[in-house]
């Protein structure tokens, strides 16, 4: 598989995915 960092678009897409993951972790942290 090609390294997504080879292209700026790949890095930005990964950045958005990381942001969503981070938001979900914060949302569900310390629940229950």
């Amino acid at each position, binding site marked *: 598989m090609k390294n997504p960092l080879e292209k*700026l678009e790949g890095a*930005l897409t*990964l*950045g958005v995915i*990381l*942001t969503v993951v*981070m938001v979900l*972790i*914060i949302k569900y942290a*310390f629940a229950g």
Partner: protein
Amino acid sequence: MNFLMDPYAVFFVRWLHVLSGIMWIGLLWYFNFVQIPSMPKIPAEQKPAISKVIAPAALFWFRWAALSTIIWGLIQAWQLGYVHDALALGFLDHSKRDMSIGFGMWLGLIMAFNVWFIIWPNQKKALGITPVSPEETAKAGRMAMLTSRFNTMLSVPMSYSMVAVHLN
């Protein structure tokens, strides 16, 4: 040290943090959105204008702005009393707010580490500031470029968590 806890001092440190951060991330995005994609379109005889003049100047302000952003940011977190809890990602006090800003702080710290210990040493080789063999120059340039792009990737969640802290 009481004057550092004054509301105006807290605001002033935040302003210095934001000011430094604009210069740091602004130059990071200049490298990734403008300079790197433009290099292949520049004729060979004109490339030294970038590699010998513009890039070294941009890198100077880039790396010192990174350090300045981190220092003012840590002072700000200390002033607001959450530096320890945020760096522990909120696990010590079960705080979503500290987890949120903590993610941003760690991402910022990783990015600043990359600037000083990966991007800058490799750029010195790539730009000929540190003389190395042609193979090593190409390898260093690629490493600097990929790390710079990695930081651009991290700048997305980093900036989000820095400004989203009031949501939690």
